[in-house]
């Protein structure tokens, strides 16, 4: 199986001055992280708050400066954000947002764009009329569906879902996860699924990585890690849930 993303020795440091005259304080957020995302898999990334989960996502998308090597097979990785309320432009209709994604990809024919937007809104389980709505007229679950559709609009091979369901209530969570799974099977996506929820990761992912204070302490097949944890931290995490 090919790797869609390969990360070698990824280190991210943030430096900050407390005031203009004090010394720079450097904080290492990610320390020598190595992993790969295989083609067509859902890789879970689990860790507590502040462990650097989102920083990994940002580094892969080149939103933060980093040291080390990140190799992409896919040219346009996309991301689903945690907060569906700020991930959709409040001034634009859903249909416009979908079409904009295609326009930015170079699709100049507005009829083709409209047809594809219609196809996508149905694929994420909403009806045609939602294309004419503003994001404020949608519920949280509907927004997250739109976000997923928007992320898939440019037909990416690799998707990062950063706490994609954490802001939703449990029943909607299940629906969105189902949708994500379905789209994964249908489009052959590779997904890096970032979460702090071990149960969700167990249901969705094939492999899992456990992150603690910027280091990957354990990784492997989900079943293996969950039934036979090696690292002390993993054991703690699992005992707190199951």
């Amino acid at each position, binding site marked *: 199986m090919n790797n869609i993303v390969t990360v070698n020795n990824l280190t991210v440091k943030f430096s900050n001055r407390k005031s203009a005259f004090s010394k720079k304080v450097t904080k290492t957020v990610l320390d020598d992280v190595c992993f790969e995302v295989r083609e067509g898999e859902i890789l879970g990334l689990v860790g507590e708050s502040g462990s650097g989960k989102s920083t990994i996502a940002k580094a892969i998308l080149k939103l933060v400066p980093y040291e080390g090597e990140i190799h992409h097979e896919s040219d346009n990785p*996309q991301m689903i954000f945690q907060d569906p309320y700020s*991930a959709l432009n409040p001034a634009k209709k859903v249909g416009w947002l979908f079409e904009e994604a295609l326009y930015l*990809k170079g699709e100049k024919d507005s009829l083709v764009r409209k047809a594809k937007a219609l196809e996508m809104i149905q694929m994420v389980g909403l009806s045609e009329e939602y294309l004419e709505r503003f994001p404020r007229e949608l519920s949280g679950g509907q927004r997250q569906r739109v976000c997923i559709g928007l992320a898939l609009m440019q037909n990416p091979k690799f998707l990062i879902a950063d706490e994609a369901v954490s802001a939703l209530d449990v029943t909607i969570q299940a629906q969105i996860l189902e949708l994500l799974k379905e789209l994964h099977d249908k489009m052959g996506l590779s997904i890096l699924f970032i979460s702090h929820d071990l149960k969700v990761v167990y249901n969705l992912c094939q492999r899992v990585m456990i992150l603690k204070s910027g280091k990957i302490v354990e990784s492997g097949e989900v079943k293996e890690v969950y039934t036979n944890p090696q690292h002390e931290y993993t054991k703690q995490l699992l005992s707190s849930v199951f």
Partner: protein
Amino acid sequence: MIKKLFKNKNLNLIIGTVIVAIMVLFMLVGIFAIPYESTDISASLKFAPMSLEHPFGCDNFGRDILSRVMEGTIATFKVALGTVIIGTFFGIIIGGVTGYFGGIIDEVLMRVIDAVFAFPSILLALLFISILGSGTYQVTIALGIAFVPSFSRIVRAEFLKAKNMDYVRMARLMGASNIRIMFVHILPNIYPVLISSIMIGFNNAVLAEASMSYLGIGVQPPEPSLGRMLSEAQTYIFKVPNYALFPGIAVILLILGFSLLGDALGEK
């Protein structure tokens, strides 16, 4: 959208629209069907009282006050409109660039803006007029420049808020250029704030133009402007109160109409 606004029975909106409509009508009559030439002098009509021929009466040179108020309103409106256009245009560009990109551009431009902002806008406009010379266009440009700082600050604050939103990150991931993100993705989100500040700016510009002309550096005589008329009428305020009254009412209505409208549109 307009239908929806009126359905809410927003009183500000209704009154504002009516007043603005009246003022626009008033100015249109001034452009196409002005009753008398506003600069025509007649010794026999000096301080003629209000009558059917001269509904607002005549001034110290026997000029028809109604016609002069019409032309004066147009002149004032033009200056205020020009000021707001200049201020908004440069305000959006400067505020957008500094708010969106940040860093050194932001530091440098905002310090310049701070320095400009430190002067009261009328004083600043006076400074520019002393460089540019007096006249309608010069006043428009001078006031426009004086209005840039406040607009760019408002726009900058909004861009700062928006640039860290996830939808901007998403647009960037999809390959949108910075210019496209700034003007297509972020700008529509700040329309409500922008509209109210444009309306407030417009009102300040009307007042500023009136005070500049009052000081004798705006619209040049014999061309009428509301501020000039008020300043000339001052001398005769007890003898001919209608001379001061009507230009004053025109200023008030112009400001009231646009501020009510701005309030209503900014609320949403």
